[in-house]
């Protein structure tokens, strides 16, 4: 315990200062949440590049949780879905059921080029379509993969902080 406290003191604060809040209002659906948005991440068939960036965005340097966004384990606990990757044939039903399991009000964030329009995997034999072909999408984050700053900016747009 002593070593842990000493290490915390020596390391100090690693998180970068928060940049300017991006312009734009919070989507109507999330207006009553008061700045706290629980996110359920769904990997609908991605190469995991976006997942690495999401992990980085929630890590100590970019620290997305200080803006009110939080990853949760079950869609029943979630307010928003964070979907990565093109929707493969095997994951189509699962993604749709996950969307139906999220209680209203809910939004869907399509993260990365693959989620927006299948990216480099467009037309592949295992791909059923982009995320908007399966569930309605409210926010899109471009990039392959999107930088953590972009992810954080998109989440700040959801929470309004």
């Amino acid at each position, binding site marked *: 315990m002593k070593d842990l406290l000493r290490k915390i003191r020596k390391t100090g604060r690693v998180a970068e200062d928060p940049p300017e809040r991006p312009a734009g209002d919070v989507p109507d659906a999330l207006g009553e949440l008061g700045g706290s948005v629980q996110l359920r991440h769904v990997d609908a068939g991605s190469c995991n590049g976006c997942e690495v960036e999401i992990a980085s965005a929630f890590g100590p340097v970019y620290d997305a949780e200080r803006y009110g966004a939080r990853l949760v384990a*079950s*869609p*029943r606990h979630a307010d928003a879905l964070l979907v990565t990757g093109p929707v493969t044939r095997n994951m189509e*039903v*699962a*993604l749709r*059921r*996950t969307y*139906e*399991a999220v209680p209203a009000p809910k939004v869907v964030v399509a993260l990365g080029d693959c989620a927006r329009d299948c990216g480099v995997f467009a037309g592949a034999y295992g791909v059923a379509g982009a995320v908007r072909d399966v569930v309605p999408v409210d926010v899109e984050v471009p990039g392959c993969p999107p930088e953590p700053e972009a992810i954080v900016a998109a989440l700040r747009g959801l929470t309004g902080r």
Partner: protein
Amino acid sequence: MTSVTGAALSASLGASLLAAVAGAALPRRVRPAGAGLCTAVAGAAAVVAGVAAMTGRSWSAWLPELLPLAGVRLAVDPLGGLFIAVTGAVAVCAAVYGVGYARPPRDGHGHGLDGRTVQAVLPLFVAAMLLVPAAASVSTFLVAWELMALASLLLVVAEHRHRASVGTAGLWYAVMTHLGLVAILAGLAGLAAAAHGESFDRLRAAAEGLSPAVRGAVFVATFAGFASKAGIIPLHVWLPRAHPEAPSHVSALMSAAMVNLGGYGIVRVGFDLLGGGPVWWWLLVLAAGAVSALYGILQAAVATDLKRLLAYSTCENMGLVLVGLGAGGLLLTAGARPPAALALTAALLHVVNHAAFKTLLFLAAGSVLRATGLRDLDALGGLRTRMPLTTAAFAVGALAASALPLGNGFVSEWLLLQSLIGSLGEGGTISAVTMPVAVAALALSAGLAVATFVKAFGTGFLARPRTPQAQAAAESPATMGVGMGVAAACCLALALVPAFTAPGLAGAVQVVLPGQDALTGQVTLRLAAASSTVSPLLIAVSVVGAVALLRIAMIRRARRRARLWDCGMGPLNARMEYTATSFAEPLQRVFDDVLAPETDLNVTPLAESAYLVESVTYRARVGDRIERRLYRPVVAAAAAVGEAARRLANGSVHRYLAYGFGTFTGVLILLAVTR
């Protein structure tokens, strides 16, 4: 002089003999029905006899011709009447159930129990169990005890042709029950020798004048024997082996009627014949009871064999009874009579309650076993839709065994806790130290009991069937249902209006502790010693009422059908359910040091390379650690002594003759020297 008690007891014994004859003589088709109905009549007569005795109509008889040298001396007082009534009630349920159970299941994957041995010996077992509480001399008691042991042994090994484990279980049971008999024999014979007589009246009168060493030795010897019969740690190892292997109605009789007689023996010898004793006796009883309660329920919580779970639960409940007896003795020695009476009342009420719900649970387990051929909870499931009656019966029994308010175990455990807590002021420093520990043990065992029976009921009966045999289960025949129904009705009556037992219990306790009643009242039970009240009926009414109100309130709200969240790729199949092993796994991890589970992992590599695996076998089981650490060394030592003794016999006839000659001349030399 005609006496209801005497007439009813004689009728009961006569009906048992008739049932035994019927079981031996009738043709196969009507054998189970004939023997079963006669045994049920015997049980009902025994209930009448017991109730009559409890309400004050004691009875005694002296039959000098029946047993050579000693004669048979019988006396039924309220204490004995309680145990006779309990045995009779259990016998009624088990006998009616046995009529249907004895017939082979229709789909052919099972065997019937309509052989002559089982059908003839079961009524004799019941008769022996009725004679033990009625015995009033040492020889009668021991003869009845041994008859009970032999009859139950024959019944336990009834199915030895079908399973190999039955033989081992029978061997363990035979050895331990006879070692217990030797201990009881030593104790009672010592007492009779010191008292120069063998009738219980003579022993009672002479016990005052015996030295503390003799009294202590007698108590320890008889306690060892009776505790072994009651399934108290560490003498319990026969219980979880014998009860699963016996036929289910025999398991019910053994678990709900026979183990009680261990408690009866402790009360009779410790409180009645010896008239109470020093503090260390009752501390021994209390400690043994508390350890049994904890260890028993812990083993039950991690058991996956349904009948083994119920057997360990019997250990736990008998431990609770002994806690009550020990607390009563401690308080009596300290001079606090009303709390002692309350503790004894609680213990005896727990005997009655345990008999009711354990019968029900074992009969329901037997029903499941007959319908599916399985005892393993991991392989059952989904029986609620296929066997609704059995499920309902098991639910009532499980609720009772968990000591939750709508069950009958709640009343007796609550009384026990009240007697322990309420006695904290009186009884001196010893009880001030031990009572809180006992309360803690009781609370822990009650909590584990809830977990155990939720596991047993949930994984065994609810959800979906996990194997084809569970899927193919069908409801049991009507006679089995009637047997379970009678037991369930008794459980419910004891749960809602336990006050009907209060006069009988008061009579029984006053045999050993004359004084005012510990328990009074009709709907609300008032405790004289602890100034508290409990009203199970009102609790039940309010709970049911609250649930009904909630349901009515919830009907008004709009409902929407939604899909169960099943991780998106459902549907869930039966193999994904919680099994009994997974349900109990957190408990097993917490109590890892006590349980010491064994795991076997065998990895078979391919012949070509040790790095490539062909097959892996994994086996995990929770054995009985006390058996491993305590009994196996003893058995190994006995085997080593036997092997060493083999060298005495090397085949030479001269050596054998020399042994005889040497002993003969040695004895003569001894005679010559000592005279």
